């Protein structure tokens, strides 16, 4: 049973992540007065990329991208997906937080090996951005952990199920708002789409990736979207008892993020970091403070 869950959970994340990619293209197209591609278009793209000749720049280049992808898959194992959580027993939030930094790290190896200036700029932007959203994210996670007195995601979800969603309770509503503010940054969408920024640094870290390497990067992007939303739904919106409800909640959040994505241009990296360290951090900090004070 555990083995089945270990396989099923990443697979579900993969499918939903790719569905999100397709949905985002369709959704954006409709906002832009277009018909848009079919929903399964990302699948075709990924298939195409996997069957193309790919140029490798060395062993480290290969390892880096695999590390990135693997880290994302590992995170997925720790996230409850509507009652389905293969790694419910251990680590929990702390592992998630730690692994989230591995994705840019792996990409840094790849980008460093490819020796493209755009890639190095993109990677440095990614680290700066990660630094920007990790601070408020940590504060949000701390608030939630303090409130429920546990680091286990499953227990947090269970606690919310017995009472009410965190975002509906007083001090945690601030953490929820803070998380909403950093969500596009976690998912790499506008206005924080500074890492790829095709018009500025031609896809940044992806610039030298071709063929299956790009396919893996695309899958990783899909997973990071899944992780960003799934964290919110689990931590602050009560999770769900069955996968269907969970998916529904994720879709609602995804539509919200896409709407922001469609309505704003991209920030410059220094502006992004200034924003992230100002409002979300402040709100998250106040939230944490209140949780600590009221919790006593």
């Amino acid at each position, binding site marked *: 049973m555990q083995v089945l869950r270990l396989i099923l959970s990443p697979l579900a994340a993969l499918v939903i992540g790719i569905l999100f990619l397709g949905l985002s293209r369709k959704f*954006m197209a409709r*906002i*832009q*007065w*277009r018909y848009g591609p079919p929903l399964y278009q990302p699948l075709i793209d990924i298939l195409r990329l996997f069957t193309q000749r790919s140029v490798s720049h060395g062993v480290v280049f290969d390892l880096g991208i695999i590390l990135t992808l693997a880290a994302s898959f590992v995170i997925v194992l720790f996230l409850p997906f509507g009652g389905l959580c293969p790694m419910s027993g251990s680590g929990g939030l702390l592992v998630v937080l730690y692994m989230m930094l591995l994705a840019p790290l792996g990409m840094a190896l790849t980008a460093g090996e490819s020796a493209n*200036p*755009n890639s190095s*700029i993109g990677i440095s932007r990614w680290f700066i951005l990660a630094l920007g959203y990790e601070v408020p994210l940590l504060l949000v996670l701390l608030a939630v952990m303090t409130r429920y007195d546990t680091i286990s995601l499953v227990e947090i979800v269970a606690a919310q199920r017995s009472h009410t969603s965190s975002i509906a309770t007083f001090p945690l509503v601030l953490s929820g708002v803070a998380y909403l503010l950093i969500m596009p940054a976690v998912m790499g969408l*506008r*206005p924080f*789409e*500074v890492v790829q*920024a*095709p*018009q*500025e*640094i*031609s896809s940044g870290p992806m610039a030298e990736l071709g063929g299956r390497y790009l396919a893996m990067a695309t899958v990783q992007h899909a997973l990071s979207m899944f992780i960003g939303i799934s964290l919110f739904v689990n931590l602050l919106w009560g999770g769900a008892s069955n996968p269907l409800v969970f998916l529904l909640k994720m879709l609602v959040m995804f539509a919200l993020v896409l709407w922001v994505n*469609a*309505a*704003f*241009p*991209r*920030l*410059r*990296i*220094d*502006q992004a970091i200034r924003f992230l360290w100002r409002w979300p951090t402040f709100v998250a900090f106040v939230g944490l403070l209140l949780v600590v004070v009221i919790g006593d």
Partner: protein
Amino acid sequence: MRELDLYFGPQHLGMVGNFSITLTVEGDRIMRAAANPGYLHRGFEKLMELRSWIKDFPLVCRMNVVEPDSMEMIYAMGVEKLAGIEVPERAEFIRSIYLEMARVGSHLFGLWAYANMLGFDTVAQWAMYHRDLLLDRFEELTGGRVYHIYIWPGGVRRDFPEGFEERLVETLHAIGGCVPDYDAAFFNNPIFRERAKGVGTVTREDALAMGGTGQVMRATGMAYDIRKVDPYAAYDRVPWEVPTREDGDAYSRIQIVRDEMIESVHMIFNLLDAMPQGPVYERTPNPLKWRIPKGDAYVRCESSRGELGVYILSNGGESPHRVHFRTPSYPHGLTVLEKALVGESISDVGNIMISMYVVAPEIDR
């Protein structure tokens, strides 16, 4: 921190046109910038010396693909000046309307490029859609979507077709009706303001010294517009204003583009109201054997990017002896841009370049 050479373009998603800039960067700051044109050099002016006066018209409009109409206009003005042709009154009005349509279309293209550069696909797509509505009107009037070859020496090729005025007004209303949407989504967007304010500032002194015209000049508060300074076509027959801003940054330049589009649409309405009846072209000699008297002339007009001029010299032959175009992007893309980029962030290269509306083919010619 070590300095790094970065090649921006020619194959680059943020680069509109085939153009390249070599940046010397230190971290995210640009220390030096060297424009590297020539990717689109076709030697137009040489080719024109080999073709007859009338055969140069298809060539001349290819010089700038974004707004070929002002190119036709300036060359026709040069030929008319040398040959001493008077243009009928109605043709002057039609030319003005046509050029203003082209200006709106060109600005919408610029808006597409600019919004796209900032990663703002939504507005970019809208702008391109609206430009396409306008291209339909061009197609109806001239038969071509992009290259029209509508202005000839002595007037225009043909009169407005039946009912064209109404359809043009309808199209312009459709575009103008979306101005509040554009304002809400783009021009008043706080993040856009954050991105564009104080970026790529060109002071009045720099603009004067470097040959800035068009938005670059008007963004520094100087109402320099050839349509007012040296009126041509029918621009002195209707009232209109030159929009200006004071700050000289990318934000002011884009605001001027917005204001100019609105002003142009209003101008078209005024021109349509005041348009007289009459012939639309003056008969010219057999164009295949046309010899133009000796002489030289410098004529200029206001394109959507700034002052467009041509120095044209005839030695009495069947083709020009020398034609030299003074295109607005030439100083903007080579001197002003190199200066404005210094000290800015890499993220803003395309931002600054497109806010000056640098169109590569007219630099290279």
